[in-house]
């Protein structure tokens, strides 16, 4: 997933000079009329790093073709991304990170907020990222909800604003609602709650993921569903709450409830496909991967709701002049629809839904976003048939799924303590 393209022989100075000259020319000639500027003559390169889900070669290629901007992409895991964002702020121009990582790194002053007036599709961003509510009557979910770290009062401040302002910390791009994956052919009963993973009937046939910051949230959903505890905020547990959660997990582990713990995408696919587990934490593309092997697998909606995550593009603090303009241009292009449609077709959601709709067929839109039965085969961006005609997406429409988010991936104040206790759980 790593795209590395380097341009040799152009120093930073000449690049900036020619780029700004061209930008000036473009502005002077009145070329900015809503069409994306073509940067081809002055090869602008933007270095983007991020957590891999949206670091797709197809996006870099399309960006080059549409804008003439070369994208250098680097994919890392989320902990490494957080570290890089803070310690090497000059090594990237665009940070493609999740909101809980942003909460960690923004106070370090490495990301500059964006002026919403320069964001062409700001008005199209779903309200979830502005107010925390998908619909006016929705309940705001716990954890690091994107809107809580989405705005600052003015450039230079290190604290987040309480409500919507002119300064947006990140342009949201990709998000989804996660739940448990099941093997409908092997569970043998209706699965309706997070607590079902602890059913003694599935002893030795369950798995949860061994990534502390996400695993603890799944554990919290399970604990609350079982009625063991009521968290004040799942996304920011107290030490006592962490202890109670981990002690419960250790007990379940020692009783043999789990078959394995997975760390990587392919591990979760193999556990499910081989029948070693019948119910486990899973990510939506992994469910699709199991299904593409011809094995029944369902991304089961649960009554307590989903654990959600979201990511966006942030501007590095060092960006200025022509590069900053190019970065805005890139972000406006990113949200103009083509990428959104691409991400929607992978089972994620785009932040600017209306623009993505224009790049999807009515049937695709109906299947992925409206929760309608597919009229024809649903094809993945790489041309592979993902679902046959007649299929309905697990969990239904966008509003049904994103409207039932119970908590967001988050970073806790007691992060270090939580990680230590999580390691005890794995060692126990």
């Amino acid at each position, binding site marked *: 997933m790593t795209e590395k393209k380097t341009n040799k022989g152009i120093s930073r100075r000449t690049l900036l000079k020619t780029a700004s000259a061209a930008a000036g020319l473009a502005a002077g000639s009145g070329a900015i009329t809503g069409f994306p500027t073509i940067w081809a003559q002055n090869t602008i390169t933007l270095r983007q790093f991020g957590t891999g889900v949206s670091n797709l070669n197809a996006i870099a290629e399309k960006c080059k073709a549409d804008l003439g901007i070369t994208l250098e992409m680097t994919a890392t*895991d989320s*902990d*490494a991304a*957080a*570290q890089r*964002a*803070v*310690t090497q702020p000059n090594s990237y121009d665009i940070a493609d990170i999740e909101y809980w990582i942003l909460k*960690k*790194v923004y106070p*370090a002053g490495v990301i500059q907020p964006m002026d919403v007036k320069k964001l062409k599709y700001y008005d199209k961003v779903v309200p979830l990222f502005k107010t925390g509510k998908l619909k006016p009557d929705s309940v705001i979910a716990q954890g690091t909800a994107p809107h809580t770290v989405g705005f600052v009062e003015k450039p230079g401040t290190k604290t987040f604003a309480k409500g919507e302002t002119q300064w947006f910390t990140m342009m949201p791009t990709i998000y989804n609602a996660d739940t448990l994956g099941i093997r409908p052919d092997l569970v043998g009963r209706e699965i309706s709650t997070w607590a079902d993973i602890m059913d003694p009937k599935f002893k*030795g046939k369950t*798995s949860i993921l*061994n990534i*502390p910051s996400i695993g603890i949230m799944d554990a919290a959903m399970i604990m609350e569903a079982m009625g063991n505890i009521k968290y004040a905020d799942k996304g920011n547990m107290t030490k006592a709450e962490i202890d109670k959660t981990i002690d419960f997990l250790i007990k379940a*582990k020692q009783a043999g409830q*789990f*078959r*394995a*713990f*997975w*760390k990587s995408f392919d591990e979760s696919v*193999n*556990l499910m496909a*081989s*029948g*070693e587990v019948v119910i486990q934490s899973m990510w939506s593309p992994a469910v699709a991967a199991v299904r593409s092997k011809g094995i029944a697998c369902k991304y089961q909606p649960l009554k307590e709701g989903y654990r959600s995550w979201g990511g966006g593009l942030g501007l590095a603090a060092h960006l200025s002049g022509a590069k900053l303009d190019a970065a805005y241009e890139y972000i406006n292009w990113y949200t103009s629809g083509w990428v959104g449609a691409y991400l929607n077709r992978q089972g994620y959601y785009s932040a600017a839904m209306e623009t993505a709709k224009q790049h999807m067929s009515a049937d695709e839109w109906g299947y992925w976003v409206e929760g309608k039965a597919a009229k024809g085969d649903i094809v993945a961006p790489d041309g592979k048939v993902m679902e046959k005609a007649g299929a309905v997406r697990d969990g239904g429409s966008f509003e049904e799924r994103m409207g039932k988010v119970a908590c967001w991936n988050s970073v806790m104040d007691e*992060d270090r303590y939580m*990680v*230590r206790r999580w*390691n*005890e759980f*794995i*060692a*126990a």
Partner: protein
Amino acid sequence: MATMTSSETEKIEGARAKSFRLPPALISYLQAAPLTLILGSFLAVPILMIGMVSFWDYDFAQMYPDFVTFNYAETLGSWVTWKTYLNTLKFAFFVWAITLFIGFWVAYFLAFHIRTAAMQMVLFLVCTVPFLTSNIIRMISWIPVLGRNGLVNSTLISAGIVSEPIEWLLYSDFAVVLAMVHLYTLFMVTPIFNTLMRIDKSLVEAARDAGASSWQTLTNVILPLAKPGMAIGTIFVVTLVMADFSTVQVMSGGQSASVALMMKNQMSLLQYPAAAANAVVLLVFVLLMVAAIVRIVDIRKEL
């Protein structure tokens, strides 16, 4: 080594041509210099740096040069560490005992039951064939064999021996030990085979002439003479098992912990100072174990 000596001779010849001679002491230092440089820069310095970093402070993003001891306090003061060490030692013990048993008998067969040296070498090379593929592949190939719907279970079920799949075959301590034995037995075979080949056959004949039974020959002659090889094999296997993380993670399905796995977890969370403290503790521990082995058996006998 060969290039070193030849360059050294050239140097001496060059010196002679100019009727200039390096002092003999300097020559030995020069000869030792390349290895010292390599070991110094790639072994000693990194270990010193690990030792240094283990006293640093850290947060999620950065390390701060400092002198704090809480990395050690957290490592040594937590029951997880002790439990993990105990677990790793358990793996080391089982793997050691099994590889020693298998390794000795394979080496014994090769050394005493195969008559021609050519055949010995051929069979020895056959032992190394599995090593032509990577560790990971040899390890992962156990998963479809041992799984719930794997080869072993489906055979047992279709043969009517068991009615339910046996669960403990995969993602268990059994699976970890099995995979490790598979991975590390050759490290035991090689040094033992080497020492057995050096045993003077006339010693065995003398024992037989003196009326010793095969068992007595084995316990009184061959085993004592094979000790240095066993000790070297033991050092290999024990250090490999103590430092293993991938086998433990894959074969136990992430359910079991080993010391190296604990370090890997800390590193993936960027807690480098904590991992460094752990590494220092493990290093001291393994060095003590090796010292104990060397104390019991004189491995120099083999050299």
